[in-house]
Structures are given as C-alpha cells and as structure tokens.
C-alpha cells in the first residue's frame, strides 16, 4: 500500500519537539548497525568513518544526528557541523525507504534537501539503493 499524502499537524510537531531526539536517533543507528552486521547494508565504513550525518524530519521538527567510525554507527556528532544534512517530511522519508519514490525525483520537486558534502550524500544514497531487501524479512514491505 503506498504511503498516503500527509504532513504532521503543528500540534504533533509541538508535541514531538518536547521529546528528546535521542530515542529515534538510537533506533535509526541500531537499525543501521543491525543491517550492516547482517551484511544487508554493504557499507564501506572507510568512506563514512569520522562523518556526522543529520536527518531532519521537517514536519516533526526532529533532527536525528549520528556519526560513523571505522566499524559502526553511533548517536551524536563527531564534530561541530554535520558533514551531510538530509531534510524532508516524514511521509517522503517513508516513501524513500520503501522505494516508492526516487531521491532524485524528490530533489527535483524540492521535497528533499541535501546539504553539505554532496559526494558523501551520493555514497549514502547509492548505499541505500544497493540494499537488496529481497534477502531480508522486510521484503514484503518493499514494492517494485
């Protein structure tokens, strides 16, 4: 089923902003590490090591910050400014993750913002694209 069109309402945003950003960031980092451990995410960590990433979910008012070392992902930042910042609404992030939308399409229509190290952004985008969900229990959520 495609992700419906929605934007989180302002009261949701106000409510979410009161929560600490750490639990969602931790969940994201934990998922990435699990995927990497199971070799679903074929990340060349040498390309990501020492970099800080910020994923900004605009309509939720949330920014998830995490970084990478030679082996795994961690919550928090390894420096001052993030090396790469990706910003979109929650529905569009979901569409990207479920492969309903292509990031270039979202970028052309200005629904996805990419700032910072563009090459790092491309590495991350192509890394996510190369995940073969058919080899995981999540395949039934993915549509071609």
């Amino acid at each position, binding site marked *: 089923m495609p992700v419906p069109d929605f934007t989180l309402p302002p009261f949701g945003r106000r409510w979410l902003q009161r929560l600490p950003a750490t639990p969602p960031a931790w969940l994201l980092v934990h998922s990435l590490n699990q995927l990497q451990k199971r070799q679903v995410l074929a990340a060349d960590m040498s390309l990501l090591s020492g970099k800080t990433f910020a994923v900004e979910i605009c309509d939720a008012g949330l920014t998830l910050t995490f970084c990478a070392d030679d082996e795994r992902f961690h919550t928090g930042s390894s420096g001052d400014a993030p090396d790469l910042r990706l910003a979109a609404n929650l529905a569009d992030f979901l569409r990207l993750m479920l492969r309903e939308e292509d990031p270039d399409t979202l970028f052309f229509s200005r629904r996805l913002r990419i700032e910072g190290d563009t090459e790092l952004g491309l590495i991350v985008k192509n890394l996510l694209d190369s995940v*073969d969900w058919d080899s995981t229990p999540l395949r039934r959520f993915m549509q*071609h």
Partner: protein
Amino acid sequence: MQRLPELICPAGSLPALKAAIDNGADAVYLGLKNDTNARNFAGLNFDHRSASEGIRYARDRKRKVLMAINTYARGGDSLRWRAAIDEAAALGVDAVILADMGLLAYAHERHPALRLHLSVQGSATNYEAINLAQSLFGVQRAVLPRVLTLDQVRHVIANTSVEIEVFGFGSLCVMVEGRCLLSSYATGESPNSHGVCSPARFVRWEDNGQGMDARLNHILIDRYGASETAGYPTLCKGRFEVEGHTDYVLEQPSSLNVLAMLPQLLDAGVAAIKVEGRQRSPAYVAQVTRALREALDQAGQSTQRFSVKPAWQQALAKVSEGQQVTLGAYDRPWK
C-alpha cells in the same frame, strides 16, 4: 501484431536491475565501479560478484544484460578499459556498449564472439559512420545520439543492416555526445574521460535563506526559488546572466519522453528503445519500466489504435528532471 523493439533499462545497482527485469525490461545495461563507464558515481555500479548475480537473475528470466564501457581510454592508459572488456567477456554479458574506436578494435580482435554495440557516446549520427563501424569491428547495434529527427532516424535505418537503438525516456543534455567538454571548464573533468558530468565532490547545494544555490567547484550555476523545480547541477542546465538577462542559456532541465511517438518508432523499425538513468534509484527504474512496458505492448497490438494513457504520462512526468518532458529532436516540424 508487430515485432516489438527491445526495452533496454538502466541498472546502477542489483536492486535496480531486479526492478527493471521484474517490471518488463527485455535487457538491462550496467557498468563497473570505475571510470570506464559514463555513470562513474560514488557507490554506484557493479563489481564482479554483483554483476554475476545480476546476470544470473536476468538469464533465469530469459532477459539480457549489456555492459557499458563507454568512456574514452586515456592515451597510454587503456589497461583499465581493456580489463573491463575482458571482464565483460568473462562474465558472459550479452553485449558490450563501446564508444572508443581503439577499444572496439580490441574487443573485436580479442573477443570475436562478444557482441558489440556502438554507444551513443560514439556519436555516430549517419549511416556511413555506422556502416563503417560494422565493417571495421563487426558492430551489430548502434545507439543513435539524441539529435536526429524521426525522419533522419528512418533514413539511417533504411540504409544500414546494423540494428538501431534510440532513446525513449530520460534526462536530456546538450547532446554533443562523446564531444562534450563543458564540465571540464569548471572541474577539470569531463564525462568522456572521467565518466561523470559534474563530479559530486565539486557540487554544493546551499540554503540562501530564500531558496537554494547550486555551486559547481564554487561557481554559482543556478539559484532556485523556494518553490522552483530543480535539475541536475550541470553547467549546461545552469542559469547565467547574458546581456543583463538571467535565464537558461544552453538547456532547460527536462526529460525526453517518446510515448506520443511510439507508433512511429515501431513503424520505423527501431530494434530497441533505451531508458536513461543508471544514476537513479530502483523506484525510478520500476516506475519508468512499467509505464514503457505497458505502452510498448499496447503499441505492438496496433500502432493505429494506440493512445497514450494518462497514467503513463503521469508516471513519467513525475520522475522527469525539472518535471517537464519533451519530444526533443525527434519532433522538428520545420525540418
């Protein structure tokens, strides 16, 4: 029923390859993870293992895999390109897509059983050039540059026994294929030698408070208002000030879309229709392949009764660069 052209779809990753096959591509084309192909982007493309798996996936479903080795080998440094051809032959791809004449000669001599396609980067726009490539290297198919009108495509087909492949959908450029040096003015690297128009490490997008600035090697090449659609950060699609007026000078961001012309292309006898976009995600490959598969099948039933379904147009318009489409050079009524 008419004999249908093959639908050739892009694959930048294994999931994209599977998406193409699952949605009805007759063949996919891919490249290796280096500068031997014209989509040399960080993290994109195939190594030996993923290429083998992709070929197996395609072959199990009776589809084909083509390998693009379509940049130009640098003088005195052609080893990587030759190795790519050897690897393609070892992998057992159905054809290699080459542009460089030295590499065509190498592939022809070293791997006589390997099928050769002349890349769009080879820039052969007339049948004499294509027939020469056939007699010299045994080229079996040529991909036409996107500069010819439909009548010119017909003229080429009428005068060659080489199969003719044309572009059907995808992002357009200034179409001086195989000769474009534009990006090297800003970055020192050109698509023909380094396999990418705007290497990502030179690209920066910055929020300027009212919109977004696109910079290539620090040079401001475009400034998008908050709600304006964006394109790829290439010099050819930048907006520049000329005589006090700022606009697109060379090209607007847009995508080619031949849906409306499918019956004429079928009647012209093209052997294959190609989709651009190895840099795009599996979602794009799936959406575009599905729309073109349905359209081709319907056109194959009857070219007279063919009509473009709005759903196909919507699917293709949505993923288009700048969210606008054009018939490009095919439609030049004044010619």
